[in-house]
């Protein structure tokens, strides 16, 4: 892929608009970005430096307290626990669960046509398009300790899934909830793998794992990384588990978005909540940059490979 021509190239005015008109066209978009994206972000940073509260004296006259909120959060064992829980949640439900199950389904279904495929895709998609609160309560009803459907099916009355295995419960829930996206993305990616390549590999005696490793993954690597980037960020900011466990029992499923809610709205500490939100923003940036770096690294390699081979005849 060619890089765009660099700025400062005097002859680069391809549209023939001239500088003034070009700026005029871009301005509305920039204004929107500024008002709805940049300003709230800066405002969050400012709030994070104050002791702003939802109620009480500090709601009327917030004072600037410097970095106290940040040092307070980083030293708070609950924040650190919440961070680990979130990483476990993202790793378990998004990277292993959704991506793994999504790929498996896409791989199994790639050669199937007709009813079975339609049925599986329909069911998986349905779990994705239902409103969050609805599925949240459905899962609550499924896993509930007293009258839960799962306990009725297994004949284990009184087993508190949400209490004894809160993190596992929300991980399984989110795998169920979000697999559709990965499945569809991988299904589309697998369409791009030429059947002749797989056929050749099979004739050469490659087993399925070998086919996946040597034929499929090199071809869909970009899709895999893009998918992981998106679902990691979504899952990191996911609030739906709140409907299932409310972050409990005693914080054992309190992933970061719920922690922020707890601090900022339930506890009323809007300043501290803003600081934690900003920390979450930074963590998200780190994750995004790591993936983008991987993607770019791949891209450069691909360009090198192409250059080495020379242009096709």
């Amino acid at each position, binding site marked *: 892929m060619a890089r765009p021509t660099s700025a400062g190239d005097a002859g680069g005015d391809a549209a023939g608009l001239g500088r003034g008109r070009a700026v005029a066209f871009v301005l509305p978009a920039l204004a929107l970005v500024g008002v709805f994206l940049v300003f709230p972000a800066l405002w969050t940073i400012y709030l994070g430096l104050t002791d702003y509260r939802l*109620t*009480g004296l500090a709601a009327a006259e917030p004072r600037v307290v410097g970095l106290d909120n940040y040092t307070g959060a980083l030293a708070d064992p609950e924040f650190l626990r919440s961070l680990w829980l979130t990483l476990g949640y993202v790793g378990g439900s998004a990277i292993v669960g959704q991506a793994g199950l999504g790929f498996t389904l896409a791989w199994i279904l790639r050669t199937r046509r007709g009813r079975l495929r339609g049925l599986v895709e329909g069911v998986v998609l349905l779990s994705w398009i239902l409103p969050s609160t609805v599925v949240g309560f459905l899962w609550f009803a499924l896993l509930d*300790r007293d009258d839960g459907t799962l306990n009725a099916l297994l004949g284990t009355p009184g087993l*508190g899934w949400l209490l004894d295995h809160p993190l596992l419960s929300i991980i399984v829930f989110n795998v169920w909830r979000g697999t559709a996206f990965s499945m569809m993305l991988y299904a589309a990616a697998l369409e791009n793998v030429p059947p002749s390549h797989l056929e050749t590999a099979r004739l050469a005696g490659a087993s399925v794992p070998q086919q996946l490793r040597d034929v499929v993954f090199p071809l869909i690597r970009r899709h895999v990384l893009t998918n992981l980037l998106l679902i990691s960020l979504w*899952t990191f*900011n996911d*609030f739906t588990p709140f409907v299932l466990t409310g972050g409990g029992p005693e914080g054992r499923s309190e992933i970061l978005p719920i922690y922020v809610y707890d601090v900022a709205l339930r506890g009323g500490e809007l300043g501290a909540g803003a600081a934690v939100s900003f920390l979450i923003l930074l963590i998200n940036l780190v994750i995004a940059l790591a993936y983008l770096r991987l993607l770019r690294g791949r891209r450069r390699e691909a360009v090198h490979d192409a250059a080495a081979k020379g242009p096709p005849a």
Partner: protein
Amino acid sequence: MRFPSRPATIAAVAAVAALALTSCGTGAPEGGGTVTLTIAANAISGGKNSESADWIKRWVIPEFEKTHQNVKVLFQPSGVDDEQYKTKIALDLKAKAGADVIDLDGIWVGEFAQAGYVKPLAEVGGAAVESWEGWSQIPQAVQGLGIFDGKKYGLPQGTDGRVLYYNKALFRKAGLPEEWNPSGWQEIIDAGVKLKAAGVPTPIQINAGTAMGEATTMQGVLPLLAGAGAEIYSQDKWTGASQALKDVLGFYQRIYGGSGLGDPKLQQEAKGRDKSFARFAEGEIAILAEGDYFWRSVIEPAAGVAPMKDRDQVVGYTKIPAKEPGAGIRGQDHTSMSGGAVRVLNPFSKNPRLAWELLAFMHSADATTSQLAGQVRISSRTDVNDEVLAGDPMLRYVADEVLPITAFRPGLAIYPQVSVLLQEATAEVVAGGSAEEAAAAYQAKLEGLVGGAANVSG
């Protein structure tokens, strides 16, 4: 789940948007044209505080509209946990929006006033406020629910008291007396042991943990603390890890620390309190500490959320005993805690005078009597109480026996945070920690919260 943005913001925006939508109608000018007033309460037909919601819709609104032409009154119901309702109202008022007449728990008045979300009634409603006929009917102690820093911010709706409820049928089964009057904590434990032996799954429910929120503090820690001789705030100091607090946590440990007398998981569940109601109604919990709310709104035979058809025959009630006779605050043998809801005016109301008229109307003798026709409770008005309470021996009992020995929470803005620390301390015990450890952790957090050991006693 697919929101690529911070959920706290989304929650806040959604809450504000939801309320902004419902309050759109308040924009009409005073006089001329139709004016809309809105009432907000944590009550909803067929759910939480159903009777209040029905009263507002079926009595208040039509009666008020009858005498006020061109005024339209809307009701904005909620049926959620108190903490969620509080957040919603705070966000509302922060955005200078919201209903004109708003229900608040009396304990929130201080922090809302400090934040500038509510203003003294006289400032909002004008001169008519001071000359209202109702003031003389409301006892000073009850008026205190709506007072902060010496100013009246809200009209109290009534007050309440806390008792131990017990299931007489289960008591009979366990060979315990049907007229039960425990004189100390040991007798509660002893009864629990006998009930357990008689096959009652959960003999005792004393609210604990953070999921129950203020219900843990109000129905559990504070009455027990008073029974151990201490108040949470006295002489300008907060009670730390004193012997009294350790006794309270020790009592929790005896119930939830492996004895099987209480159900620790119920304290951790997101809907634990509602479930405890249902279990009591089903005869699976034998002893439960609650306010009179439980009697009139939860197990009420017709409209309760966990109705008990045979409530009047089966459910007994008794005062919460002190640790030992005479060990309570002021040397009392029994203790209780009281609170109560108030109604405030929205200082950002477009029609503040009219809003006051509506508020005063809702607290008139007629209105109070009509409300009590649907649901007997201890109202704020003495004139009405004298008439109505005769019909319900339980509420008469609270008014006559419990209110004289009760205590109130400190009306300070920082109190809710102290309350959370108390909930966390009980949560630690419920999760299997020792009372000593929980008390020490509480002490450390309390010192950080209230500004050092100098403000902590014990």
